[in-house]
């Protein structure tokens, strides 16, 4: 049942968009795909949905390739930024069309959600604001019967109240019918507690992929005298480091919980802190 990605690579000319990604997506799990703008999140999702060709590597589910495999692709749904909907079609008709494509599409839930978000279903798609386009796509994503739902920036343009409602409904529908959600976002604090697993991508490279709880349990900010830190740091994985006077501070991940030398103090981190440390080297291009 797992979705397995092996050595997946995408380049455009000489530019590497995704570099040999290896990932496994388990059923009934909520993943956060975290990365800064241009990190490769959308590229990865679009390749999983077979919307853009890959340069090399493979994507399989139950050992079957997803490429040009309609039977398998039915089990995926990608709500992306690019709109694939005809601008002149009304929202309620788009719900109907989706129902025709995906037999088990939950029209009742879609109508309930439209009401909850204040989306007028008689409006044509083209007349929706940025926020309501996102809401429309979120509604479709929460109502399609697919096993792997990919959401690319699902709260783009949504106000605080609507973001709150979206997360609430996501949890509700997930509790009712567990399935895999892959949420690409850079709003980490908002999703941290919802996720089972986290994937951090930076400049086309997967920096880490593991359960949030395990990751947070082995990540710390350390601070101590520079000489003691210099002795200790080689035994752990250092993500970022800075010195001030005779004190050195570092964000590290450890295996197990090694005893800290005298004078070195540790503090817990938030996922956001860890993310910043992992992606510090990235830059706009």
């Amino acid at each position, binding site marked *: 049942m797992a979705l397995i990605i092996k050595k997946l690579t995408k380049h455009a000319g000489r530019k590497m968009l995704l570099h040999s990604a290896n990932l496994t997506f388990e059923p009934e799990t909520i993943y956060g795909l975290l990365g800064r703008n241009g990190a490769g999140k959308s590229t990865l999702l679009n390749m999983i949905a077979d919307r853009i060709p890959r340069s090399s590597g493979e994507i399989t589910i139950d050992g079957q390739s997803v490429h040009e495999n309609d039977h398998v692709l039915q089990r995926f749904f990608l709500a992306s930024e690019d709109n694939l909907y005809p601008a002149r079609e009304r929202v309620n008709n788009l719900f109907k069309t989706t129902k025709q494509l995906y037999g088990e599409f939950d029209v009742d839930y879609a109508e309930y959600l439209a009401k909850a978000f204040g989306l007028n279903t008689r409006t044509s798609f083209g007349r929706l604001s940025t926020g309501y386009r996102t809401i429309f796509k979120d509604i479709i994503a929460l109502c399609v019967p697919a096993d792997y739902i990919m959401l690319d920036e699902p709260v783009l343009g949504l106000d605080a109240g609507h973001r709150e409602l979206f997360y609430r409904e996501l949890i509700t529908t997930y509790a009712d019918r567990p399935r895999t959600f892959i949420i690409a976002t850079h709003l980490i604090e908002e999703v941290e507690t919802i996720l089972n697993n986290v994937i951090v991508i930076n400049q086309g490279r997967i920096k880490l992929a593991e359960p949030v709880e395990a990751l947070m349990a082995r990540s710390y900010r350390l601070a101590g005298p520079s000489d003691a830190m210099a002795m200790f740091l080689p035994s752990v994985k250092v993500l970022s480091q800075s010195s001030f006077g005779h004190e050195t501070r570092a964000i590290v991940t450890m295996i197990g919980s090694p005893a800290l030398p005298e004078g070195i103090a540790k503090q*817990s981190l938030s996922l956001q802190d860890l993310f910043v440390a992992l992606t510090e080297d990235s830059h706009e291009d």
Partner: protein
Amino acid sequence: MHFDFDGNTPLYLQVAEQIEEAILTNGFKSGEQVPSTTEISREFHINPATVLKGMNILVNDEIIEKRRGLGMFVLEGARERITDKRRTQFYDDNIQPLINAARQIGLSEAVLAEMIKRGYADNGTDNQKID
């Protein structure tokens, strides 16, 4: 309920602690139903697996019990067990570090005990005063 998401305490432990807190302050009495995993998940945007893990700690500690098809209920004697647990935790979290900190600045056991006594005295007489 209140959750602090800075990562100092794993979230599933916070879920367990918050339900305990609610039982201690009498929000939930013995025999009463506590909110379901889904209700807590929805309300606080916490993954249902995390909430369940927290609930299971309380089931193991005999604070709540699962009644099949009905939900989770507060057990008889839950408050006492939580109080006991908190006292043990108080000793580990506060007394041991206090002794270590006292040693670091060369305070003897007798002086520390004297300070605690003084603390009680100050607290008893001064804490009502408003200046």
